[in-house]
């Protein structure tokens, strides 16, 4: 009970800090700053205080009351707002973890990359029959499951994508070759109906070494390939 009494004391103290009028002005300032969508100017607060109240005193008082607490009254760009105490920012940072289900487009794109890697965006589009949204690939890269491997030695030098070791970890695969083959997929009832004879799945391979038709990412694309001859670089 000792705690409660002490807590009650705070509330009482809050009221007895100052003459009655100040206590009410403190409540007003507190509520205004709390509810405002933007930091408030002292002037805006002053307009609502009781006649003769000194807004500087009120704000200073409020600032002290909130000092050392989980939330502080702070001044930003000359205006007043409440902010989470800096040492507690860790609360907010991890606060924002959000679970989101992978979209169908992203799931299909991931599956195609896993089996067919290295693949270009055009390869994926060829298989899916629809354009690959930038979003789907971004999501997979953000999740850390897909990476850019290199570029295909082909017109336009498109980027090739492959899976990462995080992908294996996330989905509990010892190696990419653990991805099920056709028989297993059929056994799991994932294929309906008949498949044409001779239909097979590729052997997935996430070997990081570039294939003969791949070249490293970082090599800048020779512009003349893409745009025609360019003048020698004069900035170098």
């Amino acid at each position, binding site marked *: 009970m000792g705690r409660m009494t002490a807590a009650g004391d705070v509330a009482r103290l809050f009221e007895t800090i100052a003459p009655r009028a100040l206590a009410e002005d403190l409540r007003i300032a507190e509520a205004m700053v709390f509810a405002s969508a933007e930091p408030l100017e002292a002037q805006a607060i002053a307009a609502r205080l009781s006649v003769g109240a000194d807004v500087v005193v009120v704000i200073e008082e409020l600032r002290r009351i909130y000092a050392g607490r989980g939330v502080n009254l702070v001044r930003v760009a000359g205006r007043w707002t409440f902010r989470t105490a800096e040492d507690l920012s860790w609360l907010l940072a991890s606060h*924002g973890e959000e*679970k*989101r289900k992978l979209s169908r487009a992203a799931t299909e794109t991931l599956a195609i990359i896993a089996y067919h890697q290295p693949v270009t965006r055009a390869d994926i589009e060829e298989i899916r029959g629809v354009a690959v949204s930038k979003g789907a690939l971004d999501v997979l890269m953000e999740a850390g499951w897909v990476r850019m491997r290199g570029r295909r030695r082909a017109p336009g030098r498109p980027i090739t994508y492959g899976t990462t070791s995080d992908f294996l970890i996330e*989905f509990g695969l010892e190696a990419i070759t653990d991805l099920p083959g056709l028989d297993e*997929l059929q056994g*799991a009832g994932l294929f309906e109906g008949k498949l044409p004879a001779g239909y097979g799945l590729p052997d997935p391979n996430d070997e990081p070494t570039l294939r003969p038709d791949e070249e490293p990412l970082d090599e800048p694309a020779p512009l003349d390939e893409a745009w025609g001859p360019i003048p020698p670089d004069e900035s170098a």
Partner: protein
Amino acid sequence: MSGADEFPGALGPGSVTGDEAFTVDLDGFEGPLDLLLELARRQKVDLARISVLALAEQYLLFIEAARKLRLELAADYLVMAAWLAYLKSRLLLPAPPRAAEPDASELADALARRLRTLETIRKAAELLMDRPRLGRDIFARGVPEAVEAPRRVVYEATLYDILAAYARQAQKHANAAVRLRTRSVWSLAEAREILARLIGRVCDWTAFDDWVLEACVDPKMRRSARASSFSASLELVREGKIELRQDAMFAPIWIRACPAAAVDEIAA
């Protein structure tokens, strides 16, 4: 609407209860139950002890007056009026010794209960609406911070999702490789040509089907031949080169060359 003591409506001086002036404003009422509740309030007794008989009489008078003024009444009000007239007669007449129908007083009680339920819920609705409302009377923090903090999105998918997705794609692909055998068909132009060639030999009415059979030897082609020839023959009829006849629905179709039409003209 109106104050508690002022009945929203006047049916003309003295038309209903003499001393009370009513203006008929059924628009102000939300249906017959609402009107009944207002009438009950005017009995100025506890809703728990309203006289359903008196209420029925007032309602009927009200409807009667409204009709005199030739106001259009919604069907709901008339249905309630008919029911209350029935209830009134049941309440006034001595109960038959062995009633097959529910007791009149039970019906009256049920109505009174409905009115009380409505009244209660209305009061409750008032209290609810009087509560301080978020964003009107009380406010949440203007700038919640959690949304500002960088959010780490964790995407969720299972291996099964991925395999199912792959299978879906692979299947689409596999099925896409299926090639349909192109069927050989008689084109309209071909049919017209053959028709023109054969029609010279047909001066009298001939069964269209026999004729197709003769022209088209391959049984697999007959459907197509029949359809194309028929279309072509319609065209030739329009041009006045042949005649078609059918005696009844689904009866055989007969065909012959127009006597006037020269064979070589058709071919052209």
